[in-house]
């Protein structure tokens, strides 16, 4: 036996929508609506709190403190250098993972992806064990070159690279895998050697993904906290990056902490805008 529901009322607007675009009802069932609203509130309320509590009147004063400026400058240049290093060494690794085949390739891919899921503080501990003055690599750097890495800006860059480079690598590797290799074959028949093909065909073809991966890598480096504070510490002007400065300022000077947070929020929004074509179109491949 078929149960029939009573006729419901269709507003003129809804009627027009369904006529124009087709499709059935788009009303959300209550059991889905309530949790969805809670999720929205959970994500939006803290950000709203940041905006409400912001010392809008004296932002400039809060940010012009020498510590804040130093942290901002340090964060910007280390994140940029990290991105540069990641491009120089990460893109070739992405190519190796995508295009060549050798024993242990799957293991290598797993290792490369590990920092994505590893707690950053563990990364920091690992870096410390390897590169500290008594670390198994750092010992020789110290003995032979007098080079001490931990608690220097170089350590900041290394910690950020360790955490952020995998974002670039997996983005570019995916693009290389899905790229049409017919163009590379065409380049070969036109007399281009492997390196020329890479430079003049492969890289330009994956340029959009290269850009997206670089932005992602830069944003991740800018926000890096755990590995940096563990491996590089928090010396103002030397290794105290924005997130670390925010963390310490919160205890002593909340206004500065909020102002710095606003700057990071602004940067994040800009990153999102720059990636909008890739990510905000509901999973379409563009």
């Amino acid at each position, binding site marked *: 036996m078929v149960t029939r529901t009573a006729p419901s009322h269709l507003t003129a607007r809804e009627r027009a929508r369904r006529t124009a675009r087709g499709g059935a009802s788009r009303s959300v069932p209550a059991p889905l609506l309530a949790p969805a609203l809670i999720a929205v509130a959970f994500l939006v309320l803290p950000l709203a709190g940041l905006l409400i509590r912001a010392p809008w009147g004296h932002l400039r004063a809060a940010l012009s403190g020498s510590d804040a400026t130093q942290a901002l400058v340090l964060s910007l240049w280390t994140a940029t250098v990290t991105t540069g290093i990641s491009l120089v060494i990460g893109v070739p690794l992405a190519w190796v993972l995508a295009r060549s085949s050798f024993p242990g390739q799957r293991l290598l891919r797993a290792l490369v992806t590990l920092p994505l899921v590893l707690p950053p503080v563990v990364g920091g501990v690992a870096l410390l064990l390897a590169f500290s003055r008594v670390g198994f690599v750092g010992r020789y750097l110290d003995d032979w070159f007098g080079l001490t890495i931990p608690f220097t800006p170089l350590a900041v860059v290394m910690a950020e690279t360790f955490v952020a480079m995998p974002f670039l690598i997996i983005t570019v590797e995916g693009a290389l895998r899905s790229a049409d290799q017919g*163009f590379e*074959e*065409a380049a*070969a*028949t*036109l*007399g*281009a050697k492997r390196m020329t093909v890479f430079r003049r065909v492969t890289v330009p073809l994956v340029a959009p993904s290269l850009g997206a991966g670089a932005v992602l890598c830069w944003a991740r480096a800018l926000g890096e906290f755990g590995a940096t504070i563990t491996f590089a510490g928090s010396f103002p002007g030397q290794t105290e990056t924005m997130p670390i400065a925010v963390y310490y300022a919160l205890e002593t000077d909340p206004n500065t902490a909020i102002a710095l947070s606003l700057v990071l929020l602004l940067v994040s929004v800009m990153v999102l805008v720059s990636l909008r074509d890739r990510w905000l179109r509901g999973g379409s491949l563009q």
Partner: protein
Amino acid sequence: MTHEGSDGLVVDAEVRRGSFTLAVSLAAAPGQVLGVLGPNGAGKSTLLSAVAGLTPVSAGRIMLAGQVMDDADAGTFVEASGRPVGFVFQNYRLFPHLTVAENVAFSPRARGLGKRAARSAASHWIDRLRLTDLADRKPGQLSGGQAQRVALARALAGQPTLLLLDEPLSALDAGTRLDVQAELKRHLAEFTGPCLLVTHDPLEALVLADQLIVLEGGRIVQDGTPAHIARRPATDYVAKLVGLNLYAGHADGSQVALTGGGAFVVPDQGQHGDVLIAVRPSAVVVSNQRPQRSSARNTWPAKIAGLTLLADRVRLDLDGQPSALVDVTPAAVAELSLEAGSQVWLTVKATELEVYNHDHIRTG
């Protein structure tokens, strides 16, 4: 077949890919356009790929202008980038991030010329293929016919010894195809090296190629001039392509017993043994009654299985001993009240039957 010392292209090789094996032996002389005709999956693209150096051969060798390109026994292999080959791909594969001028200059540049020298080498081909006005466009802004010319210019700009064309016209719509085909024929005539042209379009092969080979299932089933192949197809596939009825049979003088049932009387040229008989669909006459007084000696009953309207005639698909495709005028269909299931009589004159031996397949 040996072609030692030939200055053209000589392929005598096998390429194995999984369960598929391409085994061919062919030669193309300088200035000759060798058409490779075959259905999808026959191995046409594999052949081009092997000649271009994108796929190594599994056995045998490939020679170009007296130089070994690939020799499975000796282990010699010239990489694709080192072969003097110009390849026009099926969908052209123009680099989307480069302009037309940069696409055409790609090969001179990759082969070692400086930026300026490469540009001037490219401009020669850009002018020659009437691309001057399009030089600054990106491939995405070109029509199919324009993209085809760019692909040809790009391939020729590397000054190849050998030209490979993979279905060069298949990406075009019917309207532009004839124009582009005529222009392509001119450019092929000016090219001094051998040219391998792969296609599954018989018209393209007949118009553009000097010599044809037909590939089926990785083997060459027929070769010869286009005219020869169009008149005397060796397989059902080729017969269908060129629009002929093809029958295999056993001849004993003027009597031929057909393998699929039925018999034909043919002009007696003293043939004995296995023969092929090709019949044009328009050479068969359809009538409602058994013809009483006819000089034609081949008459048999058949039943209409289907009718298809072609441009100005109707093609009948007839079941009988033997079955046949027959073309009649739409007026005849009306006059004779032809419809699916109708019983009719077919008549064909002995002189309309093209009778030839299997053995003559690989000549011409």
